[in-house]
């Protein structure tokens, strides 16, 4: 177990180096224009460009620039740790805004994740256990709808029905839970469902096929031969192995979402990382884009580490692999 953990940690370290290296190359080395002009925003003047060059160390050779970039990120810059830099366009440090928006995205992702896990796994199980029957067909019909319906359309339809027509939910926007818990919930419920639906559909299909495959395994026949009740055969034996791969998929999906759910956030006007980065792209605010890319990359990496460790507990064979 200890050796496994150390190996995973070293792997994560390598990933962090690769992520930062690639983003550095994309943002600082590849652009044909002087990066200090790009970082200075829409209407740079010579004084600002010089200031950017100075603060990012862009007059140094590329390898030194990369090390400076790493140092700012992991040791911190004049705006604190981790150093996400300064938006020359809005003339403000990025870190406080980024964290504030990450919190919104996190709430969106977490609520949606709980929903899609419950829905996806539940529907997948029901579907597999009633293979070929009405329940299975209905569930797979739902899954097809969920996979095919575009999120923006689903979001707009949901808003139109529940907000405009039925008037049972408030409109778009974000209310902090500390300000008004019930309003917070009412504002989040649609985004959660809309975001969860797509994932729930994928997960339902995966759980269904995994479970059907597992039910054909020899050890399920053994469990039945022991005279276990069908409930135990399914829940203790079949689900245990068919849900393990779901855990690893979930880690990747959730980690990715932490970098922002652009469409959902846009449709529901949520001030998360997704809308943040979209606006930054529109404005050409390069420091913000860079900060979000690095943040999202680290989010995926850390989630995958968490999942790997969890996996070692779920599958006893992993420790020795």
């Amino acid at each position: 177990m200890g050796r496994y953990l150390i190996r995973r940690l070293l792997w994560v370290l390598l990933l962090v180096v690769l992520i930062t290296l690639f983003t550095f190359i994309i943002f600082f080395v590849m652009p044909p224009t002087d990066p200090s002009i790009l970082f200075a925003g829409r209407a740079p003047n010579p004084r600002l460009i010089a200031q950017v060059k100075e603060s990012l160390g862009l007059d140094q050779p590329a390898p030194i620039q990369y090390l400076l970039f790493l140092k700012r990120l992991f040791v911190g810059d004049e705006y604190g740790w981790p150093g996400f830099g300064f938006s020359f366009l809005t003339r403000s440090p990025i870190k406080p805004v980024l964290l504030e928006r990450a919190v919104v995205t996190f709430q969106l992702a977490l609520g949606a994740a709980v929903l899609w896990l419950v829905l996806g796994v539940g529907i997948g199980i029901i579907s597999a256990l009633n293979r070929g029957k009405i329940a299975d067909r209905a569930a797979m019909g739902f899954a097809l709808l969920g996979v095919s319906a575009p999120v923006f359309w689903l979001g707009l339809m949901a808003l139109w029905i529940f907000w405009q027509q039925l008037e049972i939910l408030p409109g778009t926007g974000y209310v902090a839970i500390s300000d008004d818990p019930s309003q917070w919930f009412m504002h989040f419920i649609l985004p959660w469902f809309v975001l969860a639906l797509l994932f729930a559909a994928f997960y339902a299909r995966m759980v269904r096929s995994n479970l059907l495959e597992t039910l054909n395994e020899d050890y399920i026949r053994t469990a039945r031969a022991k005279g276990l009740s069908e409930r135990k055969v399914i829940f203790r034996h079949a689900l245990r192995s068919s849900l393990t791969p779901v855990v690893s998929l979930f880690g990747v999906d959730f980690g990715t979402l932490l970098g922002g759910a652009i469409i959902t956030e846009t449709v529901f006007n949520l001030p998360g990382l997704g809308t943040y980065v979209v606006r930054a792209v529109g404005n050409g605010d390069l420091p913000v884009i860079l900060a979000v890319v690095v943040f999202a990359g680290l989010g995926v990496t850390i989630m995958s580490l968490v999942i790997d460790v969890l996996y070692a507990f779920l599958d006893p064979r992993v420790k020795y692999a």
Partner: protein
Amino acid sequence: MSSSTHGRSGAVGEPLLRVRDLKVHFDTPDGVVKAVNGVSFDIYQGETLGVVGESGSGKSVTFLTVMGLIRSKDARLEGEVIFDGQDLLTLPDEELRHLRGKRIGMVFQDAMTSLHPFYTVGQQIVEGIRAHEKMPKKEAWDRAVDMLQTVGIPKPAERARQYPHEFSGGMRQRAMIAMALALNPDLLIADEPTTALDVTVQSQILELIDRLKQEFRTAVVLITHDLGVVAEYCDHINVMYAAKIAESGNTRDIYYGAHHPYTWGLLQSIPRLESEVQDLKPIKGQPPSLIFVPPGCSFHPRCPYVMDICRTKEPELQSPDGVHASACHLALSEKERIFREEVLQRA
């Protein structure tokens, strides 16, 4: 056939399991697969029955059906499977479940895939015990460790806490046997228990089953495709071909006077140390499809002694002495002559 006249060896009193005209047909998109097509036999208390046949001859399906593990909407079951006075084919699922694992234990071919990879061996044995007997976990655990000891696993207390992948192939199969015997069943069905194992380990496992059979007074069904394996351990042998019993009899009858050309083929394809490789005589041709079974005797396309009648009329399973039976049109005297003059010479 002197042994036959003394009756069935190992048979005492009423049969423990009585199977009559069992049919298991599966509806598939390609047609109806007749996996078991009219099979009848008895198993007596404390007896070891060997069931021999090629893959797809219906030997495994027969006993999976006995266990109630073939119950799906695509499977049509007919006939009678009487175990201790109850017909297992019509028994409700819940009552059948109480027999499975408790009164009938089963050991499968590949212990690696037949044990759950995520639970320790001890947990898996305990689970089986507690499915049928209410007892504290601790007590069931102690019984599981005892069973592991009984099947010859060294350091059983330690091994019980390990996962199947930490066991060697032979040890895994021992653990499977411990699991199947934990509740002291009346009948143990071993479905090719040694096929996945090294040759050296194979005989150890068979010896173990033989020893435990005496110790637990359990009737054993040994399913195998290797006639050589069953000789030493079985009282009675059923030879299956194309979803039916081709020949059945006491082990002595089969070895020293087989009556069916298919059994002759099996006997001639047993490798022996003293014989040359060229002496091995495999049975020519392929086993028939169970959807389109040849008309007449299903073995006739591969039979060296085929006669005209074999192509049109299906032979009944007939027994001159009530014990040794075969389904073949050849006259008894002819069978005995061929066995003596041709089969014994080569085998």
